[in-house]
């Protein structure tokens, strides 16, 4: 995934809440732990976060409540000022942007769906959705047409003239989604965007975002508490604890090779067979490849469970979508994953 230039890159980003966090942070010599910071009377919401996000990547951030997910995203969009560190977006240090530069960046590049919807209470659904277009100075007819399109997309047809107060929680959330869909930004921050949706609409929305990312190459940072959702969407998953990123990696590697005890605990209850792909588990082709039907590299271990049990060979060939041999899967490894035993 890692392309030449990351779209967003942050280096040593700290965000502390409290009285005078800058001077506190400047005063401590080495990197203070979460506890140190708390004892000093500050709350650490982001601790020394270094992260690159590639163009067209979907990065999913997970972590317990209060672990700093929303804060990190706010740092990336400069809705809050970082205490120290830099965030660059398309090779531009956003901390150095002046107000107009920031406004331009947000009008042209970024979009966000908020955890608490954040709809303007005095505007109808239509006007809320058209708001970012209005800020961009689009003319009334265009923005109305565009807004109606996306409202239809999120399934709120016929409610264009409702006020937020007159909608259910899930409907309000969909207005928030529609508002950010309206401008199809290149960089998308989605803070638990589907938390209030029912499973059916949630799935539709996920498909919609996958489609957009696939077709238009959007870069998406996505926060969720739902591991299944993360697996469906993520290119990489970042797991946060107490403001720091514990591990950021592909789903396969996170479940197979958790970097810390915390991550291991976090993924304890996950059925690994649903996560790990055959292609990931396979080793390189050494010497003569086993003959016979190959398994697809993109299939999860769960997908090929029947074969693993019935096929008695010790080593299985793995092929990519074009049929080319890419590796060899040890059946025992795959069975270990399937039955949840430590390899």
């Amino acid at each position: 995934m890692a392309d030449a230039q990351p779209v967003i890159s942050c280096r040593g980003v700290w965000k502390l809440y409290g009285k005078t966090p800058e001077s506190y942070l400047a005063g401590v010599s080495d990197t203070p732990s979460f506890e140190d910071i708390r004892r000093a009377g500050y709350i650490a919401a982001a601790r020394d976060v270094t992260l690159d996000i590639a163009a067209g990547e979907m990065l999913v951030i997970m972590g317990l409540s209060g672990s700093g997910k929303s804060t990190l995203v706010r740092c990336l969009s400069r809705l809050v000022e970082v205490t120290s560190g830099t965030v660059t977006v398309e090779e531009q240090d956003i901390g150095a942007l002046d107000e107009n530069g920031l406004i331009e960046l947000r009008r042209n590049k970024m979009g966000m769906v908020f955890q608490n919807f954040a709809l303007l209470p005095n505007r109808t659904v239509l006007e809320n959705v058209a708001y970012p277009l209005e800020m961009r100075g689009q003319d009334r007819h265009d923005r109305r047409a565009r807004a109606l399109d996306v409202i239809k997309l999120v399934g709120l047809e016929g409610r264009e003239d409702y006020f937020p107060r007159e909608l259910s929680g899930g409907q309000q959330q969909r207005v928030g989604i529609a508002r950010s869909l309206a401008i199809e930004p290149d960089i998308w921050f989605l803070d638990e965007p589907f938390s209030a949706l029912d499973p059916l609409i949630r799935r539709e929305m996920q498909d919609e975002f996958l489609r957009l990312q696939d077709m238009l190459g959007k870069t998406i940072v996505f926060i969720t508490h739902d591991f299944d959702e993360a697996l469906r969407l993520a290119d990489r998953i970042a797991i946060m604890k107490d403001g720091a990123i514990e591990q950021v990696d592909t789903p396969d590697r996170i479940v197979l090779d958790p970097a810390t005890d915390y991550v291991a605990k976090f993924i304890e209850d996950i059925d690994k067979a649903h996560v790990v792909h055959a292609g990931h588990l396979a080793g390189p082709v050494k010497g003569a490849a086993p003959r016979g039907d190959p398994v697809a590299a993109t299939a999860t271990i769960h997908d090929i469970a029947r074969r693993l049990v019935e096929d008695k060979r010790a080593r299985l060939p793995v092929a990519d979508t074009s049929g080319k041999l890419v590796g060899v899967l040890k059946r025992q490894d795959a069975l270990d994953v399937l039955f949840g035993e430590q390899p």
Partner: protein
Amino acid sequence: MTDAAIPAPAIATPQRDQRIGQMIVVAAVLLAAAKVALPDGLIRPPDWFVLPFADWINWTFAFLKDDLGLIYLTRAFADGVEWLIDITANLLYGKNRWPRIGPIPWTVIAVTAGVVGYALGGWRLALLSGGTFVWIAVMGQWEWAMETMSVIVVAVPLAVALGLVMGLLAWRYPRFEAVLNPVLNIAQSLPHFAYMIPVVVFIGLGPKAGAIVTIIFATPPMIRMTVLGLKKVPPEVIESGQMCGSTRWQLLRHARVPTARTEILVGVNQVIMQSLAMVVLASFIGMPGLGEKLLQLLQALRMGRSIEIGITIVLLAITLDRCSKAWAYRQPVHFERGTPWWVRNKLLLIWLALIAVAFTLAAFIPEAHEIKRRQAFTLSKQFDAGVDWMLVLLDPITLALRSFLIVWILVPLQNAYQWLPFAAVLTFLAGIGWMIGGARSALVCLAYAGLIAMSGWWDRAMITAYMITFAVIISMMIGLPLGVWASRSEGRAKIALLICDTAQTFPSFIYLIPVVMLFGVNDVAAIGAVIVFGMVPMCRYTIEGLRGVPPELIEAADMSGATRRQKLWTVKLPLALPTIMVGINQTVMFSLFMVIIAAFIGTRDLGQEMQRALSATDVGKGLVLGLCVAFMGLMVDHLAMRWSADRKKALGID
């Protein structure tokens, strides 16, 4: 996780403060007991202690007015305001000024009021607001009422605009807010009359002075509500605006102000109510209209007529309050798609049709245009008869009550207050302050009381203090049980709160009518007015406090087998006490305002001096007296709020 970040409060200090405070109070009592042995300088504020604040203020005002030429500025502003008032006066009651097209027929105005009422609150409000104007016209008070309205119509938008701008500035620049806050605190506890004297100096008498004093008086709550509303806007709404690339101005216009709409409109409601109260009182500085008539009639003891005007003012107050509140709490509602324009604008069309009818009627029937005073209907005979009949019945009681109060309570209490050596009073207040809020509160109390002593009005202030003490105690003795009784059932509480709310919208002047009726023009009547006025917040906060007790605590008490009385004493009252304290605080504030207003029916306290300062347009004296009153209020406010906040924290409720 984050709880531990907050340092734990030190538990021990309050108890130590208590003990120190008690010791100081004991010292105060000893001082008083040893009065005979005290030097004169500790009994009354000695001459060297009294500073000529009034002269300084007069000097400053003279400097501002003449040397700096501020008077030209204020006069120019006043002329602008007068020009506006002339327009509304011409439209509303046909004053012979530009644009000379008025007066608008009363039927048109009544219909308009009815439609506005309907739009804001349905049939009941339509009936109330339309009915109010019909009543005014039919009772032949149209011109007076319109004189009053013509000023309100000008003063309210100006005060709202001024308040909004100042509020925005205060919200934007914290430093400005830091300066503004104490000024607002004092401004909101200065009695009405203190505002009038500088206005008379700078502007003169008459409607424009009335309008300007109204604007000044009504602006502070608007500033407060604007800042409150802007601060309450959820950060995510702002952030969503930012992510859409809004500029600062767009954020303010599209996100902040609309989201703060309710608070801002509640501010407008307060401006309107304060304006009405002030316009009525401005009759003291030559403002014509309902207030002036009421003042004359009350002084002439013409009760029937007074009651008529009183009803008008009350109706106006309720109408204005209900309409503006309905506006504030109204939420936008959408129309179904494809609703044709005449349905969307149904009310507008109905209104146009109705006023067309009204104009036509007025063109042919003179009574539909204007009801002359001679043609008017009056109930004053009936009212007078009723009042006479009641007085015959009640006179023995009120007479007895009056003489009992004067001989046995008021005079002894006043003598006692005046007997107290001032050093003992100061010490006592410092002790109370220390008990409630430690050394800092003790200093605050000393500073306020010390300034009053230094003003040279100590004796008068003690008279005011004695009246307030007595009135507040009686208000509590009536208001508290009333509140407890009313909070017993949901329905009763609702009705009682509605009555309290309504009573609070009445301009304070109105409260004088019934007491003058019962007791005549004297100081018992004045105290009666203060008690009635002060009872309202007492009752209201008692109900709110008792009803705010968490239901699970009451259930726990129920399960422990507590009787109703036990529940009241062991659970409800202790938990409601912080809220009740806020009520007591308001009662004191209201009483202070009322005591000063009631001065013109005979008291010998600060209020009487204030009246004198007003007739002599003595700014210095007026402001010093006003500040004395404000300081008393602020001192009580500081103590009550501090106590209430500490108590709430200790009880863990918020």
